[in-house]
């Protein structure tokens, strides 16, 4: 008995040791009684649920906030008191929520709530979430999926980004520079937190930062790209007009080391132009940068094929300028400003993308300030070209309008070539005919000559022993010869 009780002190029932799920393996109190496998499953489920809940919560908050805004606007006079109380309650709930997550989100959220008070009176701007297009939805889903692989850190990051977006929602009336500042602060903050607290290795931090940038910038894009408060649009139009006015600039004037006569090279040039134009269609700064990088690689290829040596900056920049002039990419200044303001700075500062972006900035600056001297032209020539009086292209006997699109130009060129080819073929045909005639004439001529000669000197073939016979034939002078001596008989 005593033995039994003694044993009881340390005795644990077999069933208690087993996994709570009843899978037959032993459980562990550290895993809440599950075995390692079941625990992982349970934990994973719980975590996903948590993320889902967070997401829903954020959505709900957004909706409530909107309702609150809408009602505060419409309820100026008539709305019932109870409703505003209700609204107050919600606001309280919201601010409470804000404070609990505040430690994840320091300075910006504080400013945000202050701004919220100011904004309360203003007309509500449409919610970020309300107007989600299909793309933003897709990006959100991808983002959540991506973060799931990062366990607790992912969850925390999600909370932070959500809070940031909410804060940005209130900051929409601030100047774009301030909004950019907030975004840059946020990037820095999140990256640092991941490294110092999450102990995430630098390469992964970079990956996560890319995803965060993608997520927040897809959402913020329409509010911060070419905002009305800035003169970005004016600058866009200015540079567009400027590039159009410079249509006459030739590769030779810029000393572009690219020979477009080579089909491969002109192919690369076309690709580069396509890439730089495509930049405008992207929403995320990083994707825009990727377009610039792709464009640059095509330029390098074009230079490599032409010069057969690696391109230096001396080759690259003029070519990029030429590509920009030829492509006239839409909203060039807005795109540059947007990237500068909202791209993750670590990418812009030292990376390869940053280098190409800097070169694009240089190209734009050069085009803006371009003058006669920078093209090695005389001032008079430059002025004449600028005013459109003459065009250097005209002298090259290309009399089709210079602003015709590339395909048309190519077509004209091809037509030109074809007609030239036609001409040449005709010439060849003529020559061939002439040659044929010459040949016939020649044979005829020869035949005639031969005939003449033959006629002139007829060939008479005499019997072969005629001359021999002649010896024996009647000699004309035979008569003059004395008669042959006759034998005489003498009587003697």
């Amino acid at each position, binding site marked *: 008995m005593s033995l039994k009780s003694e044993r009881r002190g340390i005795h644990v029932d077999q069933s208690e040791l087993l996994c709570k799920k009843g899978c037959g393996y032993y459980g562990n109190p550290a895993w809440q009684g599950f075995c390692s496998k079941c625990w992982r499953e349970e934990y994973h489920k719980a975590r996903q649920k948590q993320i889902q809940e967070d997401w829903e919560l954020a959505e709900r908050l957004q909706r409530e906030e909107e309702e609150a805004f809408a009602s505060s606007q419409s309820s100026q006079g008539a709305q019932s008191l109870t409703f505003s109380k209700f609204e107050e309650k919600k606001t309280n709930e919201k601010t409470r929520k804000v404070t609990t997550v505040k430690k994840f989100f320091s300075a910006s959220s504080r400013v945000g709530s202050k701004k919220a008070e100011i904004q309360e009176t203003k007309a509500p701007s449409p919610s970020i979430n309300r107007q989600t297009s299909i793309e933003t939805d897709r990006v959100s889903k991808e983002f959540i999926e991506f973060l799931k692989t990062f366990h607790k850190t992912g969850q925390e990051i999600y909370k932070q980004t959500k809070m940031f977006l909410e804060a940005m929602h209130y900051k929409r009336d601030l100047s774009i520079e301030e909004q950019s500042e907030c975004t840059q602060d946020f990037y820095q903050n999140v990256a640092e937190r991941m490294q110092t607290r999450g102990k995430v290795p630098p390469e992964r931090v970079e990956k996560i930062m890319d995803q965060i940038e993608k997520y927040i910038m897809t959402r913020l894009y329409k509010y911060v790209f070419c905002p009305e408060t800035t003169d970005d649009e004016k600058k866009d139009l200015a540079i567009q007009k400027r590039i159009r006015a410079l249509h006459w600039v030739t590769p030779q004037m810029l000393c572009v080391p690219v020979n477009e006569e080579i089909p491969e090279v002109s192919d690369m040039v076309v690709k580069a132009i396509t890439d730089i134009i495509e930049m405008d269609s992207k929403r995320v700064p990083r994707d825009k940068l990727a377009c610039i990088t792709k464009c640059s690689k095509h330029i390098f290829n074009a230079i490599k094929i032409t010069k057969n040596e690696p391109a230096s900056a001396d080759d690259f920049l003029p070519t990029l300028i030429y590509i920009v002039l030829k492509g006239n990419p839409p909203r060039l200044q807005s795109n540059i400003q947007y990237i500068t303001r909202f791209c993750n700075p670590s990418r812009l500062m030292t990376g390869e993308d940053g*280098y190409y972006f*800097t070169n694009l900035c*240089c190209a734009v600056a050069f085009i803006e300030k371009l003058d006669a*001297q920078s093209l090695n032209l005389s001032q008079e020539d430059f002025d004449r070209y600028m005013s459109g009086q003459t065009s250097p292209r005209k002298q090259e006997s290309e009399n089709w309008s210079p602003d015709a699109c590339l395909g048309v130009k190519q077509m004209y060129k091809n037509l030109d070539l074809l007609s030239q080819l036609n001409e040449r073929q005709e010439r060849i045909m003529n020559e061939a005919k002439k040659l044929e005639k010459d040949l016939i004439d020649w044979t005829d001529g020869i035949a005639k000559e031969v005939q003449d000669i033959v006629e002139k000197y007829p060939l008479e073939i005499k019997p072969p022993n005629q001359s021999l016979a002649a010896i024996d034939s009647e000699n004309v002078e035979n008569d003059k010869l004395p008669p042959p001596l006759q034998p005489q008989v003498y009587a003697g």
Partner: protein
Amino acid sequence: MAAGGGGGGAAAGRAYSFKVVLLGEGCVGKTSLVLRYCENKFNDKHITTLQASFLTKKLNIGGKRVNLAIWDTAGQERFHALGPIYYRDSNGAILVYDITDEDSFQKEGVEVLSHLITYRLNSVTKNVKNWVKELRKMLGNEICLCIVGNKIDLEKERHVSIQEAESYAESVGAKHYHTSAKQNKGIEELFLDLCKRMIETAQVDERAKGNGSSQPGAARRGVQIIDDEPQAQSGGGGCCSSG
């Protein structure tokens, strides 16, 4: 305490990232210099390198990891005005001239350098708001300047006197080096020395900004943002580092 920890963190865990701009006239051999350094190639007939305008190199100097990004700049005179766009954020600048070409030295020295220096002055004298913004871009660094006389394999045809070049370099606070990309002379030394100087500058910067920042690049932001919660801590850090 905080400052020391930050410096240690940079040395042990994080690699330094340095941007170096390469300046110089057309045919002074900038391209050969970087290609020799990064890929050990010189006038290679079977070139696999696509471009020599942006190259990177990873180094380990006394246990400190360094990621070097070398930015070539267009040397033609018509592009000189664009310089400041390239210099932004750079930790170092290498000014290359050809020892057989007096012009390449004169232009280098007078135009580009004065440009660089006025740029630095401008960024300091601009009004505070702009200055802070500029600082974010510049990250408060001093540019380490190198003046490089290339093509010393053509010593016989030297047209720029060593003394003149060296005294000039000293007058603008730069260091002078002699290199030959053809014979692979002095190039390793040039970059190694430059990296050491940039590390030093970065460490001085870190210490100067110090107070709790843990990242060379993030100093300003770090201070600004963190003051939300560990207010007392950052005060303590300041105390510690001063004492």
